[in-house]
């Protein structure tokens, strides 16, 4: 069965390693914070200027001076720090942040990502996404494998204006976990529980390398 959004977030959370600073984008990536495995010590960075971001505040304790990059009210954990936007992107460009998780409209087999603009529709802007994907060493994309019409979002080449070139290393969708290698395209690593390799092949337009053994994700 295909994963729901929380399932995708749960699988991505398994990638977290102690000592990492992590930037989570808006949408499914935000949910990753709910599934940090036991014993893993990480800090969340939000690019509007906080390290050590905590959960949403209890009702009545929200502050207009404490938000995340999605403009949601948040809390600051012990050890947190605040800083200006240039310092925030300094730590991003200088690769002090070990992992960036973000959503995408399209990803190509060479790791291009498109997630900021649909020609002909109102363009809201790229926010910090272009800076993040241009610099981050480790980028995981959280997305649905196909769009609402059933067309693959994992493509030979992005059809939408791209946000960054050859930057995505791993994609976790409702159907599968895939690495991206410039020579081999998408490499199928894991299947969602009950989803067949054939279903994933059919849902992937870009080049997909299928190893002999593709295990199911272990989510419990």
């Amino acid at each position: 069965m295909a994963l729901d959004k929380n399932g995708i977030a749960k699988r991505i959370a398994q990638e977290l390693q102690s000592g990492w600073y992590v930037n989570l984008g808006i949408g499914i990536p935000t949910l990753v914070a709910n599934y940090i495995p036991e014993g893993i010590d990480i800090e969340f960075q939000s690019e509007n200027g906080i390290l050590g971001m905590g959960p949403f505040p209890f009702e009545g304790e929200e502050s207009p001076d404490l938000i995340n990059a999605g403009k949601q009210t948040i809390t600051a954990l012990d050890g947190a720090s605040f800083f200006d936007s240039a310092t925030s992107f300094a730590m991003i460009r200088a690769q002090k942040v070990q992992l960036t998780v973000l959503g995408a409209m399209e990803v190509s087999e060479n790791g291009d990502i498109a997630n900021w603009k649909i020609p002909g529709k109102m363009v809201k802007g790229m926010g910090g996404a272009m800076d993040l994907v241009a610099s981050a060493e480790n980028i995981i994309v959280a997305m649905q494998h196909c769009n609402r019409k059933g067309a693959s979002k994992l493509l030979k080449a992005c059809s939408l204006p791209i946000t960054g070139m050859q930057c995505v290393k791993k994609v976790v969708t409702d159907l599968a976990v895939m690495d991206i290698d410039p020579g081999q395209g998408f490499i199928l690593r894991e299947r969602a529980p009950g989803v067949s390799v054939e279903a994933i092949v059919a849902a992937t337009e870009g080049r997909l390398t299928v190893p002999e053994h593709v295990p199911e994700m272990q989510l419990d």
Partner: protein
Amino acid sequence: MINRIVDNADVALEGLEDGMTVMFGGFGLCGIPENSIAAIKKKGIKNLTCISNNAGVDHFGLGILLDNGQIKKMISSYVGENDEFERQMLSGELEVELIPQGTLAERCRAAGAGIPAFFTPAGYGTEVAEGKEVREFNGKPHILEHAFDSSFAFVKAWKGDAAGNLIFKGTARNFNPLMAMAGKITVAEVEQLLPAGHLDPNEIHVPGIFVHRIYQGAAFEKRIEQRTVRSRS
């Protein structure tokens, strides 16, 4: 001590004219210079080019100046929260330039640091890089970006003193220190304006040399854009 205090927002706008390029601190509605925005509306300054990460929401923040037709062009990284903005953009009344957020921040910082231009990897290979010089450093392509040139910068701080020193609170810091550095004339409004000597010099975020005019904000609404909470159970 050089005294940077001015009486109020109206006095602080002296020299602001139609057609100028101006900066506004804040991220979303967090840390925006509400009192200066209200005074600019009252004064009716037109054709402004505004550098600000966002463009406010309908009828609040920079949305106030949009409603009043005072903004000619917005330079921002994300502008999605405002219907009037969308209407003006689609009708061609409003010019919009979208810039990666880190590049926006660094172009402010560079302006305030005497650096005319710099190379960044952000936007390489995208339409942001069109027409810009590309150079490779350490095997990776970067694009040339220039410092902003801004006549005024309007910022908001939590505490300030008569010497113009500023301290911010929480994530309301965001673009404010960088824009304070970048403005040819920087106007700071603060929640608490104190006499010199009442702020610990060890804790100053922006030294007063960057702040030409400081005033006690008369009223702060400090609206929350996305109120998100968790249950106590």
